[in-house]
């Protein structure tokens, strides 16, 4: 599905990695490892098309993503470091809006269910009054509604989650792999997901 060919990433005048190539097939997951500042986040942003690589290309089912643009975006879900949760909106409003913006509007019932799965049922307060972990849960709840998107790109999704949250997320990821989606994620902890491949950026550079 996704192919990276000879990727090179440069930030602030430093080359973070160079000549990075891999291919990801349906049903496979990939973990990006590396020390702080090794370029994991940068790689994920390149893969989803936010950051143009300094060299090389990413292709989706054979076509370079630079040409696909919105068509490619509509195949993926990217969750970054920043949870993209608006302080002034409740978790449900946040979820409804982020789904609609991604082009897959959800029924309010589906939204309720997704939030309930993440332990946020009945939290109607504005998100500024959620704890750190609850905010991350509110962002992750989108995954429960994203079964139809083949590619998930998750940047440290496990951070700030308690053990129950980690287990829940692992379940979601495994279910997605089982329905032949593809997942790329970064994490410093051992997430306990059997990944097809690990890219270690400390060694790639």
């Amino acid at each position, binding site marked *: 599905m996704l192919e990276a060919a000879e990727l090179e990433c440069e930030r602030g005048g430093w080359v973070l990695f160079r000549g990075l190539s891999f291919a990801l097939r349906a049903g496979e997951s990939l973990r990006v490892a590396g020390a702080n500042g090794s370029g994991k986040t940068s790689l994920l942003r390149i893969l989803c098309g936010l950051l143009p690589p300094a060299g090389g290309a990413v292709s989706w089912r054979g076509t370079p993503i630079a040409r696909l643009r919105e068509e490619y975006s*509509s195949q993926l879900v990217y969750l*970054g*470091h920043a949870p993209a949760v608006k302080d002034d909106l409740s978790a449900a409003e946040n979820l409804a809006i982020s789904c609609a913006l991604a082009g897959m509007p959800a029924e309010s019932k589906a939204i309720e269910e997704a939030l309930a799965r993440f332990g946020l049922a009945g939290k109607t307060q504005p998100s500024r009054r959620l704890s750190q972990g609850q905010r991350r849960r509110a962002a992750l709840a989108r995954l429960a509604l994203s079964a139809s998107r083949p590619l998930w790109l998750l940047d440290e999704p496990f951070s700030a989650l308690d053990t129950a949250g980690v287990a829940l997320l692992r379940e979601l990821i495994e279910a997605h792999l089982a329905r032949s989606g593809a997942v790329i994620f970064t994490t410093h902890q051992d997430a306990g997901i059997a990944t097809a491949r690990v890219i270690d950026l400390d060694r790639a550079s």
Partner: protein
Amino acid sequence: MLGVARTLIYRDLLLAMRRRGDVATALLFFVIVASLFPLGVGAEPNLLRSIAPGVIWVAALLSAMLSLGRLFAADHADGTLEQILLGAAPAGVVALAKGFAHWLVSGLPLVAIAPVIALQYDLPSSLYGVLALSLLLGTPVLSMIGAIGAALTLGVRGGGVLLALLVLPLYVPVLILGAGSVEMAAAGLAPDGQLLLLGALLVFTAAFAPWAIAAALRISVE
């Protein structure tokens, strides 16, 4: 695609409501600037009447500029901007929707309140129409041009001044045409020329600004 634009506009209005203020800020600022002048200048009616169109338009300009800083900054900081750009709509549509929402919140209220200010400055009521029309045509231009500047200065050192430096020169024609049309009408002449030009400016920016905003937004999330 239209659904996304609608959601975006709805969301921005909802946020403006939530922060309650934000709708009112631009409006309040406009009213305050316009009201402070008589306090500072002294309340001589003839003097006030002759400076009224200028004051009102300068106030509109400032209040549009004031809210630009927040236009994309919050979305940029909390990661929502990336999500929007990775969303289902082309970035140009997103830009147009954001600009439109900004206008709804910060421009439209000014059009509605302007006659009240005009009253305060004792302008003849025959001018209310021209004033409101000039604002109606001019404020969306301010929003769209401003959005270009706001997008270009996102996350850039010295954002504040830079934004003003980029945007204000581009605002000057709007100010001159807008205030000019009211002054023209006050002098008893037909303000059609100025208003037509304002209209042309509006069509032009609505057609081309979204492209520039979109390009600038893409650059900002790199």
